[in-house]
């Protein structure tokens, strides 16, 4: 049986860890609120964008445009959104698993990484990281998203990559986040969703040029949406991880308290027995 002092030391160490995890949980709860509001605020923009693009594509099926066809190159660009900080449960490793466990061939991938944890994990596994834009994860803005997007699109128009993917964590709700891999280019739109396109739409200048201008904006909006969602997911995941860490600590502390009390009682009993035995020996 461990000594009283050992148990006490262990207990106080767990207690201070619990304080940290508790504080982290509170911080991420607040951050989650903010991030969730932001993610919700970007929704209308994205929805309009999606609607416009899908109805455009529904009507311009005959246009042969690189954005719709995909490039010649067998290389693929993947934008990977992870977090800069750890302690968020499986948040980062789930995204990394999407890349390593998918159908991708390592040599064909050009990784555009956002988030230090993803950079670490993927470069350790020997993936080719062409761009590390981790600092934008701290406070993602639309112009940051646009800047990175332009780099990826540049690589696409130059023919360096043939397809563009995006790996991020979809924020379903506070307790559930889902890692997702979506294809940005060539654009794929579910034909079932193009729906009510009865209105005859005119495009100015012409369809092809409008497509040229709008598709990059569409991709950027998807990317920006994913970025703010990822921030919300990160904080959600961390909140959960810290919550379970806190309750785990609680459990350990109560277990140790019990052991400590037992040990204390044991030592008192032992001391008493010794004193009585000593007294008896003197009396005789």
């Amino acid at each position, binding site marked *: 049986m461990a000594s009283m002092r050992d148990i006490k030391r262990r207990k106080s160490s767990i207690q201070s860890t619990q304080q940290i995890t508790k504080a982290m949980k509170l911080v991420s709860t607040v951050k989650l609120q903010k991030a969730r509001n932001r993610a919700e605020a970007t929704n209308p923009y994205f929805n309009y964008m999606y609607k416009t693009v899908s109805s455009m594509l529904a009507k311009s099926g005959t246009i042969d445009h690189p954005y719709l066809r995909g490039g010649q190159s067998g290389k693929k660009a993947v934008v990977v959104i992870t977090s800069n900080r750890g302690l968020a449960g499986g948040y980062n490793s789930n995204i990394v698993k999407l890349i390593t466990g998918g159908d991708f061939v390592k040599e064909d991938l050009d990784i555009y990484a956002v988030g230090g944890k993803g950079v670490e994990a993927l470069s350790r596994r020997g993936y080719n990281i062409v761009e590390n834009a981790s600092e934008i994860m701290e406070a993602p803005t*639309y112009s940051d998203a646009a800047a990175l997007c332009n780099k990826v699109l540049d690589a696409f128009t130059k023919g360096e990559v043939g397809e563009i993917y995006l790996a991020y964590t979809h924020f379903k709700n506070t307790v559930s986040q889902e890692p997702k891999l979506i294809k940005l280019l060539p654009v794929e739109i579910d034909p079932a969703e193009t729906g009510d396109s009865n209105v005859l*739409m005119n495009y100015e200048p012409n369809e092809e040029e409008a497509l040229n201008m*709008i598709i990059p904006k569409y991709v950027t909006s998807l990317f920006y949406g994913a970025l703010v969602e990822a921030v919300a997911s990160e904080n959600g995941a961390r909140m959960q991880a810290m919550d379970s860490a806190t309750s785990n600590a609680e459990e350990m502390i109560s277990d140790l308290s019990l052991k400590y009390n037992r040990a204390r009682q044991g030592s008192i009993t032992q001391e008493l027995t010794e004193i009585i035995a000593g007294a008896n020996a003197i009396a005789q």
Partner: protein
Amino acid sequence: MAEGNNTFQVEIVTPDRVFYTGSADMIEFNTIDGQIGVYKNHIPMTTVIEPGVVIIHEEDRQKVAAIHAGFAEILGDKVTLLAEVAEWPDEIDLNRAEAARDRAEERISVKAETTDLKRAEFALHKALTRINAAGYK
């Protein structure tokens, strides 16, 4: 046409917020083919926005905002502007915009080899739009 209700819905949406929703009699903005004004029952059209001032006319009042880059979807009874950035005049920091204008002008006039002329012009355009819109305060 003058009979009855001549207003239509206007919605300006940016990545960070729904910037404006309301009704209007007429809306003016810049497209890459020049400035246009839209009344109710315009033919359906999608067009690309140039940085510029958007003026929303509603009865006797008008609302002015600066918008940069995006596109507009015009339907008979609804106009949706998807803009990357949109600002009301009182949100614009005039000093900053003027500083940006001066910087952009300098970049264009110096013409160093490293200068990305297109970008400098775009920055100038943006700064001028802001200054222009701030004038409506």
